[in-house]
């Protein structure tokens, strides 16, 4: 007979169809860093995805190799909400160190699965408790003691799958995909899933209301993290030189790029059509990017805040000497080391003006894995078209977590290699002036080293130069270059990804946001409508310099809330520099900067307070 551990009263625990919560809850898996729970978490996520239910996963991990607590939250949402949710309804407590506090943090009516000797149920009675003898079950399916730590995670997958009524065949498929082509590993892991599932079926009585039911919301969708997507964008942009220095959370972007380059960019003779260099530091990484961009390569690096700081001097050179290059910044909290494994959007201002002197940079701001791919691709076109470093700012939440997405579309347009004069061009022209605005768009022409014409060469320098690239300290010549660079930035304004009016219903109140804030904000807008009856408009910013549509959006609204994940309202500050003076006072800020991804409830609450709702 089944012996569920009933912490709740019989009446409360009895489930019926009406009280069931279907496809709308979060699971929090608490483990110890280094215990190998990632595969299990991924299998569970992909199993829910396989059930056709919109799902997202977030890894909340410490800056540590092994031993510190780590949490993974999986959110199933029939409405397609994929932002972090403040509360989680199901706890899988596998870390004795945090089990009690994790347990106490659950909302009433939640469910907890834990190693039976933790005896959590003594602490409160308003949570459904499922004690499970994980070690015993694991030992029974995994004779090899040293593998048990890893296999134990799969047992939890089985228990959760049974309790949530996941289709075991769907779970099996996910396990198979996770351990593709390794039959023995699959057998061991699926054996563990099955043992957990069987245990739950025989010994636990379902008393919580949370279940997964099949939907058709994920057909044709993919699951990928933003770093892998951005790397893919770079590869399909034909990147040839990659220079980088390891730093969390951007390292996996380079790893994904490198894997794809090895897969797709080796000739039949076994030669590489790319070079990846692990540089000695970020100063060298950006130097290599600019050297390569100067000599004609599509070059990139990827880093996070501390690396961005180190790249500052070179960024100014790239801007002033007009050299293409792509820099991905997967933002994490700062300043300094900050919390390296926590998310943030606090590099925006420092990146937009990175360097000394009068410098400003084109920044692309993707807000989904699909845009990580698209902007990862488009950044190279813009860098070469505009002859300037282009920054792509994502963040840890977008970059390192798994997101559901429509499949990426192949970029059909040919690559835009920008204004490069060949030897034949020079033969016709008889020469050229490197920094002269010939076309009226403030973008000059350049030549590449190796161009076989006696007039092809020019002297690249960070010191004052005139439009023929000659050294100058003459006030008017220097200022003419600086003014042209300003005009070039205006050209950039028209070329960068335009903002998207997500909602434009004629409300008096508007929202502006960028990047990973988008998910939480869209959910919050639904909450605001449902709970306060208030319609609000929303324009999603996708690049700096800001397109004119953003000015128009602000002009149209009485109050505009700028929602962002940093302390100092950096996006709002940047907007204030750009907006006409009479528009500036319309801006208000909703800020989130505790290292966790922003959630809808926090936005809704702060909005309601500020609006006096």
């Amino acid at each position: 007979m089944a012996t569920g551990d009933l912490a709740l009263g019989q009446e409360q625990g009895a489930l019926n169809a009406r009280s069931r919560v279907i496809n709308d809850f979060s699971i929090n898996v608490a483990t110890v860093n280094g215990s190998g729970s990632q595969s299990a978490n991924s299998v569970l996520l992909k199993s829910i995805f396989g059930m056709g239910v919109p799902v997202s996963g977030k890894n909340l991990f410490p800056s540590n190799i092994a031993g510190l607590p780590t949490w993974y939250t999986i959110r199933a949402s029939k409405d397609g909400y994929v932002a972090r949710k403040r509360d989680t309804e199901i706890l899988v407590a596998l870390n004795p160190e945090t089990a009690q506090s994790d347990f106490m943090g659950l909302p009433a009516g939640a469910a907890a699965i834990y190693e039976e000797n933790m005896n959590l149920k003594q602490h409160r009675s308003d949570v459904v408790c499922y004690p499970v003898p994980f070690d015993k079950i694991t030992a029974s399916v995994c004779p090899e003691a040293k593998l048990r730590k890893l296999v134990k995670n799969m047992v939890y997958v089985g228990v959760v799958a049974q309790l949530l009524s996941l289709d075991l065949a769907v779970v099996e498929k996910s396990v198979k995909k996770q351990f593709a082509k390794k039959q023995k590993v699959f057998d061991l892991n699926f054996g563990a899933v099955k043992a957990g599932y069987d245990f739950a079926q025989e010994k636990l009585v379902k008393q919580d209301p949370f279940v997964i039911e099949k939907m058709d919301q994920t057909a044709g969708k993919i699951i990928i993290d933003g770093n892998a997507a951005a790397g893919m964008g770079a590869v399909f942009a034909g990147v040839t030189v990659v220079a980088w220095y390891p730093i969390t959370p951007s390292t996996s972007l380079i790893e994904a790029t490198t894997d794809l380059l090895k897969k797709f960019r080796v000739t039949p003779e076994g030669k590489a059509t790319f070079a990846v260099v692990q540089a000695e530091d970020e100063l060298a990484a950006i130097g290599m990017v600019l050297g390569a961009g100067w000599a004609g390569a599509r070059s990139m690096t990827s880093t996070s805040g501390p690396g961005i700081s180190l790249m500052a001097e070179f960024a100014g050179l790239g801007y002033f000497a007009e050299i293409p290059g792509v820099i991905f910044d997967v933002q994490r909290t700062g300043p300094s080391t900050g919390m390296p494994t926590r998310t943030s959007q606090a590099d925006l201002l420092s990146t937009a003006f990175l360097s000394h002197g009068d410098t400003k940079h084109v920044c692309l701001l993707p807000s989904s894995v699909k845009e990580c791919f698209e902007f990862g691709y488009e950044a190279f076109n813009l860098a070469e078209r505009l002859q300037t470093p282009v920054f792509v700012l994502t963040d840890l939440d977008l970059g390192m977590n798994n997101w559901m997405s429509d499949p990426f579309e192949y970029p059909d347009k040919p690559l835009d290699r920008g204004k490069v004069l060949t030897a034949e061009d020079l033969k016709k022209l008889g020469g050229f002036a490197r920094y002269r605005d010939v076309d009226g768009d403030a973008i000059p022409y350049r030549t590449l080293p190796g161009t076989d014409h006696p007039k092809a060469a020019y002297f690249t320098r960070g010191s004052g130069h005139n439009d023929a690239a000659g050294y100058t300290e003459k006030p008017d010549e220097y200022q003419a270059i600086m003014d042209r660079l300003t005009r070039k930035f205006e050209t950039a304004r028209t070329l960068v990804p335009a903002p998207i009016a997500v909602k434009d219903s004629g409300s008096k109140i508007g929202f502006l946001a960028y990047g990973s804030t988008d998910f939480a904000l869209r959910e919050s807008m639904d909450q605001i409508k449902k709970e306060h009856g208030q319609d609000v408009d929303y324009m999603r910013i996708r690049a700096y310099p800001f397109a004119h549509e953003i000015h128009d959006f602000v002009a149209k609204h009485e109050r505009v809330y700028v929602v962002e994940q940093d302390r100092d309202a950096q996006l709002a500050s940047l907007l204030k520099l750009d907006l006409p003076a009479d528009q500036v006072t319309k801006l208000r800020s909703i800020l989130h900067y505790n290292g966790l991804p922003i959630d809808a409830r926090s936005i809704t609450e702060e909005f309601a307070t500020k609006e006096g709702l």
Partner: protein
Amino acid sequence: MATAAPAPKTNHIGLPIVEYRGGKSTLCAGCGHNAISERIIDAMFEMGVQPERVMKMSGIGCSSKSPAYFMSRSHSFNSVHGRMPSVSTGAILANHTMTTIGVSGDGDTASIGMGQFVHLLRRNLPMIYIIEDNGVYGLTKGQFSATADIGSKLKTGVINDLPAIDTCALAIQLGATFVGRSFSGDKKQLLAMLKAAIAHKGTVMLDVISPCVTFNDHEGSTKSYKFMQENDEPINEVGFVASFEDISVDYDSGQVYEVEMHDGSSLRLRKLQEDYDPTNKAEAVRTLMAAHENNEVLTGVFYIDTSKPTFIDLLNVVDEPLGTLPESLTRPPKSALDALMANLQ
């Protein structure tokens, strides 16, 4: 009747030396750097290097201005202080078919640029790296650099009490495959070394003592013309015969160390010090260290290795420049993306 002026002397690719010249130098009259620029012009001319096939790289400082004063027909990149190595690395990755010559100074290399310098050596990046070494910061008016010898004196009377970094010993130890020291005032030696440098495949590191006439050419300086004239101790006499030259010289093989370069030219090092073997790393470093003890400034080719793979070899890239590969080779087809997408579903 006026006779036509004789056609200027041309090199073996048909260019006169004027095609290798640069802009007018803005450095001080008598600066050693100007002499080095002249030798670079001579070497490139005599080797018949197409100027369009050369990239001139530099950092910041007096030395780093000098690429403007030679070879105006070559692309040049005057970058940021101490970071010419990374810019050069990137440029060479984009186009490894070019001849790359970098000009740095002792401040640019041995202080602010040390981090990048050592990694360039370690990678054996195929380029010529010249340190125009005068022991002082010129543009900021005469502070000691890290190659200033211990006990040497500034014009102001300040004595340097820190040991000099021997960039040659460092280069040998860290992986450069052609390492030598010369003196801007020794035309013959410097020209031969530069020509051999052009023929070499790998990192060539040449430390060229180049007196600063304004801030470091006085009594008490160890980087002055006078000091060098008195203390220059060549370890070998450097001779170079290019692959296209048809010169046969008889020499006593016991007295000359001959190195065949990968392009078929020949570097001949006449032994001046007993049994010095320029292919023995440990011996080279030991000899340099011993010279410091004796207050000698050794010059000549200290170390050469023509077999070690370069960074480009290690990266196993295609023969064509990466930067200008056609889209058909750099952008995977639609089927590749479709397969990736299917796998993520």
